């Protein structure tokens, strides 16, 4: 038991060290911004990983919750006069509520059908956001009032690096621990075999719903963070392409691996930045890298690399 505790603690400690030490390598605030984007995407991906990797479901519309969190902190202060931190919480509650309401019927579907249903959900949310321009500013988006906590205005790339890094640490801690709780074990059971899990007495429907809600809250918080950080939000953040990006991050990093989601986010966010030197060949190369990465590391970057290291260590 203590050994397991140590492993989780070590992972978290290493992550904390990475977050703390990385700034020493950054020559300008541009790098802080990119890193903050990585932490935000990683947070959303960890949530999706709980749903896809641990509980074995699939969601092609996850950016919808990201968008709800982002627009909650945009609309709340601007149109309703709610203080930003309260809007953040309301966004999370709304996402959880929507996930709960829609989750029950949707999660009865399986495999590709579940994928399409979640895709449909994502499309619907993105459409509503784009169309209701009186509230949301329409397809061009709307500005977001900066977050202020107890009088301290949170702004600037440096500040947001630490805030998003902190959020990521908390999110990682929860996800790592989840694996060891009865809930986490139930997730793993229903991932392995839904029928077997039911036979053993796991309330499959309830746990699927839990995973869905948890993932929605993660995405919502990540979305709110991005909106605050940018001072601006637009409907693309809730769109289909962003959902696909999130799924790609999770799978590329390693389905079921929390650290994998962070690595996947790091790769998928920084790669387009690094590929800009190739000008018009950027997309071509991005697609190629994704294909090659998935062929040679078919379980994802982290699981494949760790099993490679383990084999080396053993031999």
């Amino acid at each position, binding site marked *: 038991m203590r050994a397991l505790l140590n492993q989780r603690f070590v992972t978290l400690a290493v992550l904390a060290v990475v977050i703390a030490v990385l700034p020493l390598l950054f020559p300008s*605030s541009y790098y802080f911004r990119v890193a903050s*984007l990585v932490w935000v995407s990683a947070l959303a991906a960890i949530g999706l990983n709980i749903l896809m990797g641990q509980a074995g479901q699939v969601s092609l519309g996850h950016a919808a919750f990201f968008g709800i969190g982002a627009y909650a902190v945009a609309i709340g202060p601007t149109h309703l006069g709610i203080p930003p931190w309260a809007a953040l919480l309301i966004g999370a509650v709304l996402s959880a509520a929507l996930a709960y309401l829609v989750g029950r019927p949707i999660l009865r579907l399986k495999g590709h059908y579940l994928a399409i249903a979640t895709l449909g959900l994502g499309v619907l949310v993105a459409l509503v956001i784009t169309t209701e321009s009186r509230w949301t500013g329409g397809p061009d988006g709307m500005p977001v009032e900066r977050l202020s906590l107890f009088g301290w205005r949170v702004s600037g790339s440096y500040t947001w690096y630490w805030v998003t890094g902190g959020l990521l640490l908390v999110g990682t801690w929860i996800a790592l621990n989840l694996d060891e709780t009865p809930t986490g074990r139930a997730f793993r059971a229903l991932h392995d075999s839904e029928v077997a899990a039911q036979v053993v007495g796991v309330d499959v429907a309830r746990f699927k719903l839990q995973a869905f809600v948890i993932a929605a809250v993660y995405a919502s918080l990540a979305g709110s963070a991005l909106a605050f950080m940018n001072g601006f939000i637009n409907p693309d953040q809730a769109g289909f392409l962003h959902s696909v990006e999130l799924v790609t991050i999770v799978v590329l990093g390693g389905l079921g691996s929390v*650290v*994998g989601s962070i690595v996947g986010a790091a790769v998928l966010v*920084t790669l387009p930045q690094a590929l800009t030197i190739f000008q*018009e060949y950027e997309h071509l190369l991005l697609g190629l890298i994704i294909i090659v990465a998935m062929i040679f590391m078919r379980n994802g970057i982290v699981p494949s690399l760790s099993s490679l290291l383990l084999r080396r260590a053993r031999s």
Partner: protein
Amino acid sequence: MNAKATLKTLLVTSAMCLGLSHGALAQGTVKIGSVLSVTGPSSFLGEPEDKTLRIYVDKINASGGVAGKKIELVIYDDGGDANKARTFATRLIEDDEVIAMVGGTTTGSTMAMIPVFEEAQVPFISLAGAIEVIDPVRKFVFKTPHTDKMACEKIFEDLKKRNFTKIGMISGTDGFGASMRAQCVKVAPSYGMQIVADESYGPRDSDMTAQLTKIKNTAGVQAVVNPGFGQGPAIVTRNYAQLGMTNIPFYQSHGVASKSFIDLAGAAAEGVRLPAAALLVGDKLPENDPQKKVVTEYRQAYESATKQPVSTFGGHAYDGLFILVEAMKRANSTDPQKIRDEIEKTKGFVGTGGIVNMSPTDHLGLDLSAFRMLEIKGGDWNLVASGS
């Protein structure tokens, strides 16, 4: 096992960071930045802008640069993603240390980038269409394209001349279409216009006959306006002819201001009117028109270099670049603050979009006369003579 993996994260991330570092500023060059939507849903706008900037920066450098310094153009492609645009804006300021920027293809990406440039106090000449870019006026933000509000006003002006008051609208749900539609709705009452039908289509939709059928069947429709850009308006125009609606006057927006619209819409484009910059009818302008020289030269340069028809989007990039270059010459310095001051003092600048006269309260500098009302006849653009 997890620790090792996390260590890998550290290595991977730091390797990427080092890979992203750029060299220091070379002596005798000055960096100008640009974030354009060269790919993605707005590539119809972004690609001509990208090409124009490259062609003319090369030309400027070939003839000695600006005030003895060569221009280094740094272009990033945001793919139509406002979040990415924001990141590239930060990169331009922090990493590339540009002294000014001409870019921001779409209103979405422009609005996302404005805070970055305002905070860094670096001038930003935007190529986006919506009026909210310069209204309210922000110290460091300028723009070259006519606003969507101006487009509505020009169209309504023409409708009023022809004694039409009841109009139907069919707009794209993209940023450009939606914001122009909103402006038209706002401006309509002051021209005595009544909007009796209001339909929309997705920018990537392939068939708009359903929406047009509804407009056709609305009683009393005297004219139809289509705010949008890209392939949508071309399809709408074709559907319009298919449904036999061509007896109802049809107006496009300046979002289709390129010959490719006429090519795509084909015979259905006959008789369509739209407000556009003089660039499209350069060869039909009278000799004494002040814009004639500039637009003819630009069209010649662009078409011979790219083998593609000229478009006003590239023209806006041309205007932006040269307003900046002229300001740099006048300021005789590479200090962003001084350049900004000179941009604001731009007077009588003859561009492809019109004659630009900026002021501290007007960071666009164009008035309604910069827009010409055009009609498509015989597969080509024609100036509508005033009074017709």
